[in-house]
């Protein structure tokens, strides 16, 4: 039995708990999520993005749903359906507010008309979607079981009753035609009696001159009433002419006071979690940045990413100048010590590492060509800031406190990201403290990255991988934002990488000067 598109069953849904969102600012995900929350404000998807999963089954459940939604046909159908159902639920809620209002006049036929309209839209949305079900050959468990649920709902007596009653009333309403006559402060209403109109044969006289399609409407007026109260009064006069029809409408409103099916409503809201993500990454993919569905790693498994990147930066820069990077931790490796010049992309790399883990645990696709991510219990971050370099002496103390807190809460299932810590003290102090920190992290056996300006921290240990941000050797001022696996010294490797991109001096000379000379 279908319960939720976010969880395989009610038990997993009920046991899900909010994650600490503290790390999101350091990971740079706040801005990305804020965009999502704004664009999906009506759906209130926030809680979904703040609840990471810890069991692989639930993650796989979501990955499969998201993969299904990458199919444009599936996505289009589901997007439309969700928006329609959700809108009708909102409309119904507002109608109910009106009908229950203390201002008695709000309980009127215009409000009831809105309830009828919402019900009709609801039926049409469900009918339209169920017509497509044959085409929607969902692969995921989540969407398949939703489809089965909906197919059964469409066949239910409750739904059939709603649809036929609404149709009967609308048929009656469409027959209504009334005349109005305004004089002074009085409006009179009676049944329309076949009086001719003035537009007759105007077209016949002048149409022959028309070239092409020609504009037909110069002035389109809103068909919404100017004053609701007066429209309500007019409608009461009309109801007095068509008594039976309007009392049928009264009955309809009592009977279908809450016509929206709860699981369908829940689906419409929850599916937006996936749609929002796909909408967000669609432009990034167009810029050529890849996304993939990560494998899920546990304690001793390998963790890796190919062509990963910082999704927040890519979003902000619209994909411009985004450099992708790889990493790999093969057991027993579990910590990266990242050194290299400032502004070389180290923070970005570290963020990307954390982001990929966080997104993977939401069951979403992650930046990169392929990836394997560790299902963590928590992500712990400590990002020092560059401007804190000469900060007050209290800095070292607070660094150490934060580190203590991390050591107290981290487990071997945690992801720990530490960025430029101990920068406020002397080098010898920093090396001493840093080495202790590294020892601690090795013992903790957690996954993560330590970013440091101290080459000494890239100690030789089976648990440690040393990586470095690169500069262009011919132009040391120029950053490449490439992060590679290498001990923290020398530049020969950098030249090799640069040559693979055709960016050495010889190559550039040949291509630019030589090319011109050939002309």
């Amino acid at each position, binding site marked *: 039995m279908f319960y939720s598109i976010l969880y395989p069953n009610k038990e997993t849904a009920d046991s899900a708990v909010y994650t600490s969102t503290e790390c999101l600012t350091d990971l740079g995900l706040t801005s990305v999520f804020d965009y999502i929350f704004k664009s999906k404000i009506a759906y209130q998807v926030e809680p979904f993005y703040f609840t990471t999963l810890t069991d692989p089954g639930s993650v796989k459940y979501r990955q499969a749903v998201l993969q299904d939604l990458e199919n444009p046909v599936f996505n289009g159908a589901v997007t439309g359906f969700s928006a329609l159902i959700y809108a009708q639920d909102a409309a119904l809620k507002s109608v109910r507010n009106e009908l229950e209002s203390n201002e008695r006049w709000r309980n009127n036929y215009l409000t009831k008309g809105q309830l009828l309209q919402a019900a009709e839209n609801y039926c049409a949305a469900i009918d339209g979607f169920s017509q497509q079900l044959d085409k929607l050959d969902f692969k995921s468990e989540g969407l398949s079981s939703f489809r089965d649920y909906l197919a059964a709902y469409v066949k239910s007596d409750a739904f059939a009753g709603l649809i036929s009653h609404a149709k009967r009333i609308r048929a009656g309403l469409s027959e209504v035609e009334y005349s109005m*006559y*305004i004089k002074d402060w009085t409006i009179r209403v009676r049944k329309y009696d076949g009086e001719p109109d003035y537009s007759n044969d105007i077209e016949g006289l002048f149409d022959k001159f*028309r070239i092409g399609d020609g504009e037909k409407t110069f002035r389109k007026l809103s068909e919404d009433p*100017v*004053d609701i109260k007066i429209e309500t009064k007019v409608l009461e*006069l009309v109801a007095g002419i068509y008594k039976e029809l309007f009392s049928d409408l009264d009955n309809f409103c009592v009977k279908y006071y809450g016509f929206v099916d709860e699981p369908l409503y829940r689906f419409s809201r929850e599916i937006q979690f996936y749609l929002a993500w796909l909408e967000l990454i669609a432009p990034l993919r167009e810029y050529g940045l890849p996304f993939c569905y990560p494998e899920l790693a546990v304690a001793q498994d390998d963790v890796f990413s190919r062509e990963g990147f910082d999704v927040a930066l890519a979003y902000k820069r619209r994909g411009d100048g985004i450099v992708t990077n790889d990493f790999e931790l093969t057991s027993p490796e579990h910590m990266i010590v990242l050194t290299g010049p400032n502004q070389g992309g180290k923070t970005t790399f570290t963020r990307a590492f954390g982001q990929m883990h966080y997104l993977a645990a939401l069951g979403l696709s992650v930046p990169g060509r392929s990836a394997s991510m560790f299902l963590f219990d928590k992500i712990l971050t400590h990002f020092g800031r560059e401007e804190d370099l000469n900060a007050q002496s209290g800095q070292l103390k607070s660094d150490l406190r934060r580190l203590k807190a991390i050591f107290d809460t981290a487990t071997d299932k945690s992801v720990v990201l530490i960025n430029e810590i101990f920068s406020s003290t002397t080098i010898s102090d920093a090396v001493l403290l840093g080495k202790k920190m590294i020892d601690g992290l090795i013992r903790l056996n957690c996954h993560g990255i330590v970013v440091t300006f101290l080459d000494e921290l890239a100690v030789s240990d089976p648990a440690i991988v040393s990586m470095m941000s690169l500069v262009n050797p011919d132009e040391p001022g120029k950053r490449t934002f490439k992060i590679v696996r290498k001990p923290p010294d020398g530049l020969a490797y950098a030249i090799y990488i640069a040559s693979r991109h055709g960016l050495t001096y010889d190559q550039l000379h040949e291509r630019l000067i030589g090319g011109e000379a050939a002309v």
Partner: protein
Amino acid sequence: MNVNLMFRDRNVEFGVLGTFGKELLLADLELPRILKAMSAGDETIYSACETALFQPLTDIARIKYRQDILADARRSPEVVRALYSVVVDATTSQNHSFRAFSTTASSSLYRSALDFLSDFINGLFALRQIADKSGKGFTSEGLRNLFDLFQREMDDAYFKKVREKLRELQDAGDETYFSAKLGHYLQGVNYVFRKTDRHAKRAWRTAASYTIPDKEEQTGQRDFSSRSDRALNEVANTLAAAAKSLDSFYTLLRNELAFYIGCLNLEDALAAENKPVCMPELLPMPGFERYGRQLYDVSLVLTKKTTVVAGDFDSHGRPLMIITGANQGGKSTFLRSIGQAQIMAQAGMIVGGEVCRFPIRSGLFTHFKREEDSRMKSGKLDEELTRLARALEFIKPGAVVMFNESFASTNEREGSEILRQITRAFREIGVEIFSVTHLYAYSESYMSNPETLYLRAQRLESGERTFLIEEGLPQVTAYGEDLYNEIFGEKA
């Protein structure tokens, strides 16, 4: 209702430019000055003629159709100009303010649409009168049909019916009776303004009613006037659409007449400079026979600054014209006189000269040296190649391409080689080529090629240039020295 003055079987697609490289042609052939003379200050004429120039005809019968109408117009210019002025008066007296339609209240939309309609109807009546009075003297199929159309569709019975209807509408609209249906949420929609009679008025006395309470008169006022506005809106829209229909007819008639008025204006302007015009004879596309007597650069004449030399030209059926000779010797002017005549002839226009017998071309492409371009050499060549590459997908068999000092931006050997390869490829698909060039290596390589016609800027024994182009082989040196001497006042 179509007027079919530009095509026997369809309306002109006004403002649609069928030709690739409009901007290049305008600049290279100096066409704006010609269009300006044609328009004599009337923007409609300008764009009608521009449209005709850039939707060239490739079918001789279609060209003949326009030429016949133009011949009629040249015989009785006063009648054609009278038609045009009726159309202009009817459309401009309204100030063409259809845009205001969308902003006014329904009642003023209603009134102004009625005003539009009666002015338009008066104009139609004037057109019919011209047809009655002067239509007989015309022989072209296009103008004959137009006058027939006026007499058939706008007879006295039609004017009687229209005027009655307009009167009825003038008198309506004082009292507001209207019907409505129920919308999505039961709001009143589809308001329709209704005629009412005595019987109906009696029925209203017993109808249910609602009266605005004393304190709510302000909202009541707003609501009621909005209802009246909506009631009138449909019929007002219908009237406006009718006015728009008539306007579209006038616009079409104006656009199509404008072309012929433009030709008359051009002929007048050239006559004032004592320059003859002629109706060109078009030959079928595949041939390369091309003949002109006393052809001249129309645009240059219109500058009124200089005496313009007219010259004769005969291709002798050859498709490759290599033109060499002194700078400032009239080579560009020569290309322009040919190019202008080509594009004007294929629009159905008169051309500048005494006799013009030109083949139909599938397209006219100019590749002139950009004088203003002073960037570095490689950039210039790049620009030249880019410009030509863009035209490539449009150059088809039967086209004519005019090179004017192309690829002079690189050295002679390379420029020659590029141009030779291009020339060869174009010739293979049957493209006619005019090539003004200083690239000697290029020009001399066709010496033994029988399909080549060598032309040269004439230069007298005295060294004086006549600005005439005559047949002649390329010579190794150009006459830059002459020019230098002339400007610096030195003797060689």
